[in-house]
């Protein structure tokens, strides 16, 4: 194998599994160390620059970082590997920060004369607004609802995301003074284009809940509700009751929000029914857990066939039992199990079987291309549509995802809009800001805590269920207290503190090999990657994790380090007599507009 080029920012970035997995590339270990040090405001600001909504995401994020977390791999010997509770630590920063208002950017002193319209006031648009407003752009924010926040306000129940948290973080952006056009729905993109904006960003989400067209749908319509519309109605206080027996159809996070909300609005017997198996449900595992904890059973392999009704009133749902069958390629199909149908009686049904994009307000003859699925054609790097002035982001761009993706799209779109307005090529993307610095303080002293905590993952305490089920606005999770937060933060392996190897200094004494607790390091003859992976000190378990390869050493051998299970404990560097190993902090800030780069 060729020697690893650590000057390529992607190499060390990939070692920081959480940051690499995060769509917004938040420097996770950096802020976790700040939390451990009690620097909550600093931790908040690291998050805020990167993901804009730390308090909101610390409660609602889909956490792509956690399945990626190295801790979940190195704990495998304990039998119950668990990643660091990254998401809930983010909340700790938000809950315990001091006033950060003074650290927020100020509205631009002078405007640059460029006008940008943002359609929808959800996370994607708010991110674009934050990245552009301090640069002097005039940003006009449209939304059909009367307050900003988008799906974060309408679809996420208050018992998961209190209004005060949402308002605070939305306000940090509204304080930058966009022109608000709330309650003003855009009905024609052609019309908006004619208003001579320099750029338009579409961040209107995926606002249509998928229908379930089976017999009885029309007749029993009064008691059958589309999940996201119903949640929004609850959120705005228009709906405050539901029947005693509720069936929720669907297995995603919206279904989990629907069933848990139902339990709080009078649903005594609430059941979730999914077509697929329990394991394949789209809902995050912790959301399923929370629902079941509230006494909500999840029934699987049942396909709804008919809404049963009597005299115009819904009385139940008939389901066909199915089973999963896999073809030679491993593709699954659901086939009838050959058992009699089951009927579940109920008073109300919530349909949460998916969301769709809908762009009836975008004329198809204005030079903005749609693909065969009737989705706009959007460049995933620039977020630009085929109309040079129109950009997309969030669920509007590539269908339903989650808030953190919307933020990432927002950053990319803001960069593109800024480039466009300055007359530059939107495809010339700015590089990330990268810094690599030694953490050595003394002979065996590092500026980070390298003593690995052996603790298992801490559980976030919940409010008593007797209280939470009575009040749809009472937050269920209490968040970590500061002691728990410190202990959980100490589980982080500091994967951003890189093991950097300087081959000319190595005397091949084997000290690093002997001390490495994970048997990551091997000195061996060079070979092709596949062969090298066969000859490592310990088996290579995840070929997607890189091998760090040194140039040839004095004996002609090379050093090969399997990055996969490194604890970043720094013992290799402590044992190295010549300083060939050093622990260096790799800090990467993903590209943002010029404003955010300067301040990130």
């Amino acid at each position: 194998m060729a020697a690893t080029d650590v000057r390529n920012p992607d190499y060390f970035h990939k070692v920081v599994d959480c940051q690499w997995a995060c769509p917004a590339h938040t420097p996770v270990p950096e802020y976790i160390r700040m939390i451990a040090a009690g620097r909550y405001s600093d931790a908040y600001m690291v998050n805020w620059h990167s993901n804009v909504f730390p308090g909101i995401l610390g409660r609602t994020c889909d956490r792509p970082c956690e399945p990626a977390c190295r801790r979940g791999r190195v704990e495998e010997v304990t039998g119950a590997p668990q990643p660091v509770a990254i998401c809930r630590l983010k909340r700790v920063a938000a809950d315990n920060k001091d006033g950060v208002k003074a650290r927020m950017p100020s509205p631009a002193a002078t405007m640059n004369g460029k006008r940008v319209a943002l359609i929808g006031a959800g996370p994607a648009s708010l991110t674009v607004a934050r990245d552009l407003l301090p640069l002097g752009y005039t940003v006009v924010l449209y939304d059909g609802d009367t307050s900003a926040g988008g799906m974060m306000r309408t679809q996420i129940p208050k018992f998961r995301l209190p209004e005060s948290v949402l308002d605070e973080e939305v306000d940090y952006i509204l304080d930058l003074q966009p022109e608000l056009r709330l309650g003003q729905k855009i009905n024609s993109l052609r019309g908006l284009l004619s208003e001579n904006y320099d750029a338009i960003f579409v961040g209107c989400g995926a606002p249509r809940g998928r229908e379930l067209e089976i017999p009885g749908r029309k007749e029993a319509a009064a008691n059958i509700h589309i999940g996201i519309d119903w949640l929004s109605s609850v959120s705005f206080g228009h709906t405050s009751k539901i029947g005693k027996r509720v069936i929720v159809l669907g297995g995603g996070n919206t279904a989990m929000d629907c069933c848990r909300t139902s339990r709080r609005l009078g649903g005594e017997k609430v059941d979730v029914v999914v077509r697929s198996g329990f394991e394949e449900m789209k809902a995050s595992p912790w959301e399923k857990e929370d629902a079941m904890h509230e006494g909500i059973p999840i029934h699987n392999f049942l396909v709804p066939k008919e809404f049963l009704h009597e005299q115009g009133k819904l009385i139940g749902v008939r389901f066909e039992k199915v089973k999963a069958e896999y073809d030679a390629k491993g593709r699954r199909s659901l086939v009838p199990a050959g058992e009699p149908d089951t009927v579940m009686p109920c008073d109300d049904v919530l349909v949460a079987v998916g969301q769709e994009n809908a762009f009836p307000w975008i004329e198809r003859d204005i030079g903005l291309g749609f693909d065969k699925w009737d989705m706009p054609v959007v460049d995933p790097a620039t977020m630009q549509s085929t109309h040079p002035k129109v950009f997309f982001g969030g669920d509007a761009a590539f269908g339903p995802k989650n808030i953190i993706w919307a933020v990432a799209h927002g950053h990319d779109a803001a960069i593109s809009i800024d480039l466009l307005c300055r007359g530059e090529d939107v495809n010339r993307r700015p590089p990330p800001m990268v810094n690599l610095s030694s953490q050595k303080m003394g002979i065996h002293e590092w500026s980070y805590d390298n003593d690995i905590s052996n603790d298992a993952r801490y559980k976030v305490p919940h409010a008593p269920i007797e209280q939470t089920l009575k009040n749809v606005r009472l937050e269920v999770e209490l968040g970590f207290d500061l002691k728990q937060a410190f202990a959980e933060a100490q589980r982080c392996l500091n994967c951003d503190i890189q093991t950097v190897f300087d081959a000319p200094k190595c005397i091949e004494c084997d000290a690093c090999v002997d001390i490495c607790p994970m048997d990551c390091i091997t000195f061996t003859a060079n070979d092709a990657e596949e062969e090298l992976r066969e000859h490592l000190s310990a088996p290579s378990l995840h070929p997607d994790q890189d091998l760090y390869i040194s140039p040839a050493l004095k004996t002609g051998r090379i050093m090969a380090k399997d990055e996969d299970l490194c604890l970043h404990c720094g013992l290799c560097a402590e044992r190295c007599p010549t300083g060939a190993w050093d622990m260096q902090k790799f800090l990467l800030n993903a590209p943002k507009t010029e404003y955010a780069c300067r301040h990130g």
Partner: protein
Amino acid sequence: MTYIVKPRLRHPALPVNKLGFTHRDYEGTVSTLCAGCGHDSISAAIIQACFELAIEPHRVAKLSGIGCSSKTPTYFLGQSHGFNSVHGRMPSVLTGANLANKDLIYLGVSGDGDSASIGLGQFVHCIRRGVNMVYITENNGVYGLTKGQFSATADKGSKSKGGASNMDTALDLASMALMVGASFVGRSFSGDKEQMVPLIMAAMRHPGPAFIDIVSPCVAFNNHAGSTKAYDFVRAHNEAVNSLDIMEPRNPITVEYAPGTTEEVALHDGSTLRLAKLDASYDPHDRIMAMAYLQAKAAKGEFVTGLIYMDRQAGDLHANLGTVDAPLNSLSEKELCPGAKALDGFNTSHR
């Protein structure tokens, strides 16, 4: 040295031996020696050898004297018996322990100061008595704990870190061991685990006094130009006479050598030692030739490593003394004090 405890976490797919242990289970507490010390690599090789032989840790007694080398038994086999003796007196303590309980595996760990200076008399007598043991010297040519004075194994003409030349003649512990009757003699280098591990394994399987001299660079005081025990110097002048493999009955032979270049020796536990001859003329069963060979190579400034000598008919102290089969410490009062009648009979036999 390091200030943190080595993390308990380990690689989830580490191989396990037939006892169900990983090599991590044979570790001791974290080393307090200097970063890069060759002794730590020797500890790692001992750990690896015991792991591969699937030795039950409680069946090992590790004994040492004083010095950097003699600190190391703390850093391996944390579940084994240990005895840290007076300076240079490890061999007699080991002899006594072996006499009392011959069922344990005795591992003496010493250094060039402990064995070649203050303990030289103990070293030769322990070997000439034929005590069944593995005796390892971690040989760095200097007194590391007292800041790097030449030890008795420092080569004549080699230079100290401060630039002074050593004018005394060096003791060669391997040659001395051959001379006084070691039935297994090896020499190795701490920077070469591939050689060290099978050598230690073979020595542990050898039923007599087995001695291994391991050159182990002192990174603090003896790893400079002009030293003959520095990493670079040893790598440049190291001449291995053979390479070793220990094959368990269950493991098939995988590496093929040209006919006539390998020799297989059955070890008494059923495993096989395979020697690949790197110097075709070298016969590791000829003691006289081995002694001459070491001297001839040393005169050329070369440093011979590998299995230098092995007596296939080795015996030990207990055989020489004709002790009973049971370990002496297991004998009860009944066997030890057979009564007046037995004493009378015994006395009569001498009249």
